[in-house]
């Protein structure tokens, strides 16, 4: 038997809300299957299971917030499959029980007892979750007592009239406390505004911690992109619009390949030591429309062709903006790249996202006078910066990294 627990989806996550189950008791699952959606301050994330087997029963109802590590469901494993450790340093799942489980795995588990079966429309369930209402506490006006949107709306209206209560008690360690719901008698925040405020709080906590704990140092390099852009222009001329490459894709690929040469920057800080990572998963900082930031990972960035990278990048951006990222994308970047697009400033010195040990920044592409063979000519350049963790590396190795990025961008056809 193995527990499927509330995963940690970011260094500062201490608790999450189970938004929805995507499987039912009795369903067979294999490692990697998406079984639930978890709502965090930053996004609604699809969560994968790491054991294969059959779901015996759910332990937590949708709409409930629980600390990271809380068992959410019990899975009867097939054979001797052991759950692999979740990526964040949370305690491993409970060891398999000595005695075999009573229910035979082939018979679908009894699941939720019949009398607890809740009739609620999908849309009402979604709305209840958005408004922070427990579905169990609602009464339904639909056929068979089915809960509909208007029942959820009515309950929310009633709640506004009742006195406000403080939200869940502050979790022990990290500083992301869930503050009480705003007590102002004026109109309550819309669900979207609440999510936005929660995201701001989460970012604030994460960035403060990073600056407190990580001794940042900074290096910068101005990189001549004339060759890269000339090559890109030619490439894009012959490509259909759906296959066009953005210059950002070249920058990301160069970073990924440079990390192979300076692998100590492709690592995470775990407790009191640095752990080198084999895979290069570049996190890309994506600004969300209307404010907010997420930095999900492009897996195996160094092994992707530019086309694949571009496709994955576009896909990540759309899903990030639509709020449908997967848990492995949120918890596995090994380094982050942040860029300020067309209207930003010339250089950006980012704050490292713990537990990563570095962040690469790219400013806006600008034309500057450049000396080539003794002549001053206009040249498109970009300022690349590296913020690195001084516990893990020093200026000498860090500058080798930026030099590698520069060198790689001078041969764009090799990227």
């Amino acid at each position, binding site marked *: 038997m193995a527990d499927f627990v509330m995963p940690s989806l970011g260094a500062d996550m201490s608790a999450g809300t189970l938004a929805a189950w995507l499987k039912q008791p009795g369903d067979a699952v294999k490692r990697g299957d998406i079984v639930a959606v978890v709502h965090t301050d930053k996004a609604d994330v699809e969560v994968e299971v790491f054991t294969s087997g059959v779901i015996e029963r759910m332990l937590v109802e949708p709409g409930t917030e629980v600390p990271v590590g809380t068992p959410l469901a019990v899975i009867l494993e097939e054979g001797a499959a052991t759950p692999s450790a979740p990526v964040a340093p949370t305690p491993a799942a409970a060891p398999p029980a000595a005695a075999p489980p009573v229910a035979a795995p082939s018979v679908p588990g009894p699941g939720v007892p019949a009398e607890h079966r809740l009739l609620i429309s*999908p849309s009402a369930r979604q709305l209840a979750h958005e408004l922070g209402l427990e579905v169990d506490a609602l009464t339904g*006006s639909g056929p068979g007592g089915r809960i509909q949107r208007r029942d959820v709306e009515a309950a929310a209206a009633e709640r506004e009239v009742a006195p406000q209560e403080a939200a869940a008690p502050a979790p022990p360690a990290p500083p992301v406390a869930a503050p009480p719901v705003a007590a102002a008698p004026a109109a309550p925040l819309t669900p979207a505004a609440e999510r936005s405020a929660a995201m701001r709080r989460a970012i604030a906590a994460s960035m403060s911690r990073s600056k407190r704990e990580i001794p940042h140092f900074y290096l910068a390099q101005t990189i001549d992109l004339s060759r890269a852009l000339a090559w890109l222009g030619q490439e894009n001329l012959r490509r259909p619009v759906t296959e066009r490459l953005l210059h950002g894709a070249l920058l990301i690929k160069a970073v990924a390949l440079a990390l192979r040469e300076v692998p100590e920057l492709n690592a995470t800080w775990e407790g009191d030591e640095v752990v080198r990572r084999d895979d290069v998963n570049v996190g890309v900082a994506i600004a969300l429309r209307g404010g907010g930031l997420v930095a999900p990972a492009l897996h195996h960035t160094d092994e992707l062709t530019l086309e694949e990278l571009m496709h994955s990048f576009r896909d990540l951006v759309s899903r990030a903006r639509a709020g449908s990222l997967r848990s492995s994308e949120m918890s596995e970047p090994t380094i982050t790249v942040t860029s300020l697009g067309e209207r930003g400033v010339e250089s950006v010195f980012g704050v490292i996202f713990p537990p990563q040990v570095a962040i690469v920044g790219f400013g806006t592409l600008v034309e500057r006078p450049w000396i080539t063979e003794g002549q001053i000519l206009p040249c498109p350049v970009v300022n690349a910066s590296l913020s690195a963790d001084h516990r893990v590396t020093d200026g000498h190795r860090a500058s080798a990294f930026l030099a590698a990025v520069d060198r790689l961008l001078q041969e764009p056809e090799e990227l």
Partner: protein
Amino acid sequence: MSTIKLTYREAVRAALRHALATDPRVFLMGEDVGGYGGAFAVSLGLLDEFGPERVRNAPLSESGFVGAGIGASLGGMRPIVEVMTINFSLLALDQVVNNAATLRYMSGGQLSVPLVVRMATGGGRQMAAQHEHSLEAWYAHIPGIKALAPATVEDARGMLLAALQEQDPVFIFEHALLYPLEGEIDDEPRAVDIAHAAVRREGSDVTVVTYGGSLGKCLAAAELLEQEHGLAAEVIDLRTLRPLDTDTVLASLAKTHRVVIVDEGWKTGGLAGEISAQIMEQGFDLLDWPVQRVCGVEVPMPYAKHLEEAALPSAERVVAAVREMAF
């Protein structure tokens, strides 16, 4: 930009005239399309204007002349085949399914069948059990073709012109009761988009999805719902039955959370069922109520007027279905 008033019938004729005048590869072929002017008077006057090579009467053999249309398009022509009604098209289904729809695939892309087939469809004219079918769902089922259902005067003209630009077969279903429908449109014939549905009336309480001859009934139902029950229905005209534009339906559902599909064909195994499945798959979390369907009653079409009316979707049945969704 000037406009003209014309009927749906005249709009189809205008498209035919424009196509015949501007593209020498186009010709019209079907039963009685020549001197008689077409069973529904769509091609009235075209024989005189364009001559017997361009406007060709076909013998009473749907399989034969649809097959000839396929052959002509393989040979580089752009035939418009008029099958008098969808009822008689059953005799040509083998040509449609096994030749028109599949030659591109079976030839590894070497052959293309740019055939346009128009047919009248639907009931409500007391033509009884064998002559009032709505089998658009059978065509929408076939990969390799497009199926269009113009419900407005503009689409009646524009869809035919758009269909002629396609490289693969296109089937256009003209509900017979729409031919006298009047409308005012741009006087310049042009093709319309055939990839998207259209919101014909905006609303936020319930989404009503339909196509072809049922559009008018749904708009009437929406009016009744507003006047008598204070409910605002959003009416969507699918316009294209294959491929289906589910995105427009889902966008509406995101506002209303309730949907009724109105389809003159029989309910079992029909187009409404396909749309319902797609809504369930892609918009599960948007639904506050199971998807409802108002379809043709599951009987052979009666001849007697009052029974025929009872067997078809009507504004009253749509209103009743919406009200059952417990607002």
